[in-house]
């Protein structure tokens, strides 16, 4: 794989990789750095990348694993794969319609890492369940269960907020 081919693959995926890193790390600068770190690692292991059947899922999986390593390095307290209820509700202040989309984004950010990664891969990146299963190294059924739980949590919290408003 030469530099031109590598650049072409990487630049096609860079926005998706950045959004995934931002979602997992919840920090824009850290996300930018981690995408660059991935670029370096993939370039050094480009022989493995060129042999991958699906370069798209291979690269996204590498991105997720690198982000999780970064989180572990920082010794984050959040359990990476656990399933817990959304904590830290809004303090009852009224949100206008424009803010509601931001509120939904905040709700997604409060989901456990696995669920927020899955919901974003599906609803923002529009990926197939089979592709998400490959990236997360889960079964398709487990992906569907996590996706459904994540969406239901968002709906419940949003409706509660709308009622308060």
């Amino acid at each position, binding site marked *: 794989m030469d530099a031109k081919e590598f650049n072409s693959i990487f630049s096609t995926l860079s926005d998706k990789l950045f959004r995934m890193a931002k979602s997992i790390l919840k920090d824009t600068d850290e996300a930018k750095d981690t995408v660059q*770190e991935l670029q370096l690692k993939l370039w050094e292991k480009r022989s493995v990348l060129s042999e991958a059947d699906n370069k798209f899922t291979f690269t996204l999986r590498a991105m997720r694993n690198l982000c999780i390593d970064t989180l572990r390095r920082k010794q984050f307290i959040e359990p990476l794969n656990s399933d817990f209820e959304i904590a830290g509700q809004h303090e009852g202040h009224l949100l206008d319609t424009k803010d509601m989309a931001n509120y*939904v984004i905040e709700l997604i950010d409060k989901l456990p890492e696995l669920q927020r990664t899955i919901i974003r891969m599906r609803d923002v990146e529009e990926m197939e369940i089979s592709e998400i299963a490959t990236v997360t190294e889960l079964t398709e059924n487990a992906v569907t269960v996590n996706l459904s739980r994540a969406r239901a949590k968002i709906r419940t919290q*949003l409706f509660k907020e709308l009622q308060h408003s």
Partner: protein
Amino acid sequence: MNRIDEILEKYFAGSSSLTEEKELKTYFTSQDVKPEHEKYVHIFRAYEKEKNATYPQNATYTIKRISFKRRFMYTVSGIAAACLLVITVVRFQANTGDYMILKGKRINDPEKAREYANAKLEKSLSVVQRSLDAYKDNKQVAERLNEIENQLK
């Protein structure tokens, strides 16, 4: 039940197809949303908004430095563990009738006390080493990125 309600039900069960979900997105970002569906609009608007986040093409890698406070803490804990080891060993060698209280238990065996002190020292040193390694790795990444950037041009 109309078509949108049907797809919504499948959507929240995680069983809708990508085509059906695209149909939902088109509907909820249009101006023709029925009043009973308005509460869902924010969800689909959020996804559209998230899609606009793009990777900055001129991104530069940040070399992270360990703060003075953190470095100070690591150094102090390392020194404290080393002192503990020295004191334990010297005291046990000077007086064999001495003992040590560890988690409320009296330990008379100097070998056990030395093992405990050694373990404490190793733990502290590994914390210091890990932080230094992280800094070194980070610096190496920045240097390597510069080289690779030139190769990829």
